[in-house]
Structures are given as structure tokens and as C-alpha cells.
């Protein structure tokens, strides 16, 4: 037997470069793997049991050895056994799986928020400091990262197998996922929900850096404007500050400190103001009228991109006082440059 050295080298390279088990690169991964191995154990045990029964009986009771069958009606005891034991095992899987699910989908409160916008066929990441990335995501180790994600067109799904996290990215609604990377390196990002022609090209890389490297990276790749600063500019140019002046007599409610508060709506219900609420209130104001205000806000649907909305949301999150709103307003008024509110309909 002689294998040509070229072929041999190729084979060795090909086989050694293959993967059999994903890396564990987030704090969630060990938890997911534990459940995986438990489920694997059940599967193998179940298969072994069924296999042993089938093969055992086939050998013991084959026609040559047992020419005449003995009729057996059944056994309630046995039926109960193989109802209750699988049920118990499956319930364990359910509880364990549910705990893991809530671990993966409940971000810790101190998580750093990064926005992700999915569109055919790319991922855009926006860091709060204004760093933009395409098909790439830089994150530090040792810090929980929350991704707030939205799609501009169809369903996508943001998956990092080595972190064992995945979440569908939905058009028209924020969805979130979080992770805490443990090992520096680069890891695959996949879009796992079929999203059209170049679905398999909608891939990217997470670059996990040590906190020091991450700091260097943030400084090196900033665009000079944070998301909130962009949002402030947009807030003025869309004319939001014309109504949301922060005065007690203004036509729109004051927005300072609104993020995270409980708001009473005109419909009587009380809501918690989060990113999703802010986004929705800009696009569909009629369903989110604050109690005591008239439904006069026009919709901005189709006038702001998802990125713009993210900027606005970040700005509103950072808005603690109305001081700067009023300052901007005075400046723009003195410049006679107050932009028209788009699409205003006279009540």
C-alpha cells in the first residue's frame, strides 16, 4: 500500500481542519452543553434499551428457536412503567430546558447594549459609542453584552454557535439576546433563518477581545459621534423638539427621564418605557398617547431608517434633563431654520 505524499498531506490537512464539537466561548455554553450531554445520554440509553430488546428478542425468539409463539395480551404494569418513566425523564428535560431558556433570554441588568440591524444580506452592528460595523462584531470578554436586534426586511436569525445563543431578528420589533464571551478569538455569526437568495452569505464574525484590546479598538474606530449624539441631531432635524420642549405647557410630553419609567397612557393602561416602546411610539404614536395629551403626533413610519430610530432611542435613553432640548430649540428658532414637521395633518 502506497499513498502518494501529496494526497496524504491533503488528507491529513483536510481531516485535522474538520470540527466535531463547537468551542465553548461564552458563559452560557457550558450550561447548554451540560443539557446537551444529558439529552444525549437519554437518547443513547433509550436507543440501547430498544436495541437490546429488539435484538435480544429477535435472537431468543426467532422461529428456529421458538417455533410456536405464546400469545400474551399485554401488561398494565409494563404499560405504566413505560408511560411514567419516559414522562418523568421528559419533564426533567422540560424543566432543565426552561431554566436554560430563561438564562439565555433574560439579560443581566448591567449588560452593555449593542444594536444589530439585519437586512438582506448583511448584519450591521452599532455600538453606543458610535462605532459601526458590518458583518463584524467586536466585544470584550468578561462583560455581559446585550444585543438589541431588528430586521429591516424579512425574518433573519442571529446565531453564534460557539456561544450557544441564537435569536430571530424580526421586522418591526426589537428582539434581544445576551452573552458574555470568555475567550478572545473570532467566532462565526450565521443568519440561520432562510432569508432569500444570499442567505448563506449573511455571515460574519464576532471578534472577542480582552477588555484592554477592546478599549483600544473602540478608540480607534469611533466615528466621532455617539448614537445618542446622532439621535440628538435627528431629534432637532425632524422637529421633535418643537412639541417635546419639556415645558409644562408644551404640546408633547417631556421626554427627559422617560426611559425606564412607568407611563400612564390615554387608554388608561400603564406601560414600562423600554426601547421597544420608544420605537413603537415614534412609528405608531396613536397607540401610545400619554395621558393628558392630544393625539396630534404624526407618524414617522417610512421617514426614519431603523438606524435613525436606534439613534433616537439611544438619545431618549440618555436624555436626563430638558436643558439641551431647549437650547437647541432657541438656536434653531433664532436661525429661522425650524424644519417642517413632515406630514402634519390638521386636526
Amino acid at each position: 500500500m502506497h499513498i502518494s505524499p501529496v494526497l496524504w498531506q491533503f488528507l491529513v490537512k483536510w481531516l485535522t481542519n474538520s470540527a466535531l464539537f463547537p468551542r465553548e466561548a461564552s458563559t452560557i455554553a457550558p450550561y447548554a452543553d451540560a443539557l446537551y450531554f444529558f439529552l444525549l445520554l437519554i437518547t443513547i440509553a433509550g436507543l440501547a434499551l430498544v436495541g437490546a430488546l429488539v435484538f435480544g428478542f429477535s435472537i431468543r425468539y426467532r422461529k428456529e428457536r421458538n417455533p410456536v409463539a405464546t400469545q400474551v395480551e399485554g401488561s398494565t404494569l409494563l404499560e405504566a412503567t413505560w408511560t411514567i418513566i419516559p414522562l418523568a425523564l421528559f419533564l426533567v428535560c422540560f424543566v432543565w430546558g426552561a431554566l436554560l431558556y430563561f438564562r439565555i433570554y433574560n439579560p443581566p441588568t448591567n449588560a452593555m447594549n449593542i444594536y444589530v440591524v439585519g437586512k438582506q444580506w448583511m448584519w450591521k452592528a452599532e455600538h453606543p459609542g458610535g462605532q459601526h460595523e458590518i458583518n463584524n462584531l467586536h466585544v470584550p470578554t468578561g462583560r455581559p453584552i446585550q444585543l438589541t436586534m431588528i430586521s429591516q426586511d424579512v425574518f433573519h436569525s442571529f446565531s453564534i454557535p460557539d456561544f450557544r445563543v441564537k435569536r430571530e431578528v424580526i421586522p418591526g420589533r426589537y428582539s434581544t439576546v445576551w452573552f458574555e464571551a470568555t475567550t478572545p478569538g473570532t467566532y462565526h455569526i450565521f443568519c440561520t433563518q432562510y432569508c432569500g437568495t444570499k442567505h448563506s452569505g449573511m455571515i460574519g464574525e464576532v471578534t472577542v477581545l480582552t477588555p484592554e484590546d477592546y478599549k483600544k479598538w473602540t478608540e480607534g474606530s469611533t466615528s466621532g459621534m455617539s448614537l445618542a449624539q446622532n439621535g440628538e441631531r435627528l431629534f432637532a432635524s425632524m422637529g421633535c423638539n418643537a412639541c417635546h420642549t419639556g415645558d409644562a405647557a408644551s404640546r408633547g410630553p417631556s421626554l427627559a427621564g422617560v426611559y425606564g419609567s412607568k407611563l400612564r397612557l390615554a387608554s388608561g393602561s400603564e406601560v414600562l418605557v423600554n426601547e421597544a416602546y420608544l420605537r413603537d411610539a415614534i412609528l405608531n404614536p396613536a397607540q401610545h398617547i400619554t395621558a393628558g395629551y392630544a393625539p396630534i403626533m404624526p407618524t414617522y413610519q417610512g421617514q426614519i431608517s431603523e438606524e435613525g430610530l436606534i439613534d433616537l432611542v439611544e438619545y431618549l435613553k440618555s436624555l436626563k434633563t430638558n436643558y439641551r432640548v431647549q437650547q437647541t430649540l432657541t438656536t434653531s428658532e433664532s436661525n429661522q431654520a425650524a424644519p417642517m414637521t413632515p406630514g402634519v395633518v390638521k386636526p
Partner: protein
Amino acid sequence: MSSHPHDPANVTNPEHAEHRIVQPGTYIAVYIALLIFTGITVGAAFIDLHIFNPIIALAIACLKGVIVILFFMHVIFQSKLIKMTVGAGFFTFLILVAMTLTDYMSRSWGLW
């Protein structure tokens, strides 16, 4: 074929019911009831009863539907099998509604 009279169990079994001809009198009564209920439904819509408006409207609609099913469609005179079949249809529809609503109703409970 003719040497075997059909299974006597068929006559007593729950899948079988004696055929019955419904007389026009019943139909007329049902017809008048349906018209009256239609009137009530329209009338009730003009009175402000808050949350009870849709409830009353649906209750009357269900009542009318049940009357039609029972009398026009003869279900009241039919075998248990047919009654269960009708029930099964509406039950499955309820599953569709109720189980889907578990999602829609609890979506805003959490932060996700």
C-alpha cells in the same frame, strides 16, 4: 349480500339515529326567532354597554348559530356521532384561538 341483514348493533349504537322529518311549523318558529334575534342584535349595538357590546353581539350570534345547527341542520335529531362531530369542530377552533392567544396575551408581560 341479502342473506346478511345488517348488523343489529347498528340500530342501537350511538352512531345511529332514527330518521325524522322536521315539520314546517318548527322551521317557521325558528325562522321568526332568527329574525327577532337579528333585530335585537342591531338594536343592542346602538346602546353603549362598554365591554358588554361585543359580548352580547357574540352571544346572540352563537345562539342563532346553535338554533340553525340544531333545527335547520337537524342536529338535535341526529345521532351522538354527529353531535360529537359538530362539537369537535368548534372545539378545535377554540384550541386554535385559545392556544394562539397564550402567545399574544402574554407577549407584553416581560421585557423580551
